[in-house]
């Protein structure tokens, strides 16, 4: 999915996070977004998901301008991996199945085999599928969040510090795997070194 941010201005009270900010990301390209805390990295992802509405300018995803009418369909083409998986009750399997029960995802059908294949790819044990999410370590939860995003088979993947809690050895493996996904457009917000991307945006320097 192609992404265009056109002359965005975003303010939170007195603070201006983006001022006349524009960005073009071609289809199937990967963008690495870096920058210090508060530079607007997470806000950028929130803007794309409609969780934050710009004061000025417009966002176009896959040819559609983000607005209250289009956002619901657009979210069905996006997968979002948060830095921390929200505190949900139930097992890893319950979470994955829950996401597949949404009307928009019912055509996908949850496949245990597909889930376990991803578990193997990301170094999780098969029995961890039955483990309560809250009992998984931070790094394991992050890998579960990535797996849940991949199972949804979306065109656009948004990763928000998605490997920050994954241990060093595993981190490289996860980064390599995701960097190798060439069919999806990807925006990777990260402090971690080692991501391979087509474009890099350092928000500390953009003003």
């Amino acid at each position: 999915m192609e992404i265009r941010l056109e002359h965005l201005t975003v303010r939170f009270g007195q603070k201006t996070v983006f001022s006349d900010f524009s960005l073009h990301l071609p289809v199937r390209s990967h963008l690495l977004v870096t920058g210090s805390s508060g530079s607007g990295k997470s806000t950028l992802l929130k803007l794309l998901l409609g969780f934050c509405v710009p004061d000025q300018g417009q966002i176009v995803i896959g040819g559609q301008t983000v607005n209250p009418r289009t956002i619901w369909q657009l979210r069905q083409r996006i997968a979002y991996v948060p830095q921390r998986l929200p505190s949900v009750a139930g097992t890893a399997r319950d979470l994955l199945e829950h996401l597949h029960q949404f009307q928009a995802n019912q055509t996908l059908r949850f496949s245990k085999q597909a889930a376990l294949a991803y578990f193997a790819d990301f170094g999780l044990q098969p029995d961890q599928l039955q483990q309560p999410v809250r009992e998984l370590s931070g790094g394991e939860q992050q890998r579960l969040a990535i797996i849940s995003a991949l199972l949804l088979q979306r065109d656009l993947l948004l990763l928000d510090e998605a490997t920050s809690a994954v241990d060093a050895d595993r981190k490289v493996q996860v980064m390599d795997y995701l960097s190798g996904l060439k069919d999806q457009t990807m925006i990777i917000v990260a402090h971690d070194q080692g991501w391979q991307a087509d474009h890099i945006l350092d928000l500390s320097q953009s003003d």
Partner: protein
Amino acid sequence: MMDNPVPIPLWAMVAFYALLLLPAGLIWYFRLGVLRRLAIAVVRMTVQLTLVGVLLIYWFRWDNAWLNVLWVVVMVGFAAVSAVQSSTLRLRYFFVPVFLALLVSGLSVLLFFNVLLLPIREVFSAQYLIIIGGMLLGNALKGIVIGLSDFYQRLQDQQDAYRYYLAAGASRWEALIPFFRNSLQAALNPSIASMATMGVVFLPGMMTGQIIGGATPDTAIRYQLAIMIVIFVCIALSVVLGVSFSLGRSFDGYGNLRAGVFRK
């Protein structure tokens, strides 16, 4: 048992008020700082109940169906204001949804109760419509306060979970279901607990009133059972409707909870 209730003479009322000096003294001694609030609450209670008493004398004398329904509607209005103000939610967003939820759930359950018990011409009689309506609304009010507060507070505290579901393609309602489930549970739990202990731990107010008023324990218990069931139904309905009716105003078109929903 079958006598009319013993009237409370004026001097006895004075004695009851004098009894308040005891907790007031404790509040003063331990510096709880609620003496002023207690005084205001007692004065409000006295004035409000006296006024209601005077009005009820006329309403019972006229006993006009339209006026009785009007009484219930006004009561629902006061209940809606009181419910929203005793939460952290903003009246501007929640008065209309809570008013409609209490009106629809209260009136429908109330009419069901009256139609089952009374000849059709007495369904709107003051004795039943106003008195049972008051009991229903008082309880539904507590339920809707708990339900709505829990729903919106939890949603704000766990916004990351709600957004995670939205980002995964959930509709607004699909993303809200876990929060709604919790709020309904929170609203119904006190009623379930009080039903379970009723008659063992305490004698309920309606039953006590009826027995003092001269009813036999048999009749009083049947009324109490019936009223507990309709109260429970009314709470469940009012929470479901209250949350449903409030969704339209509380979220923007993107599904984000509006910042103005909570009082500062």
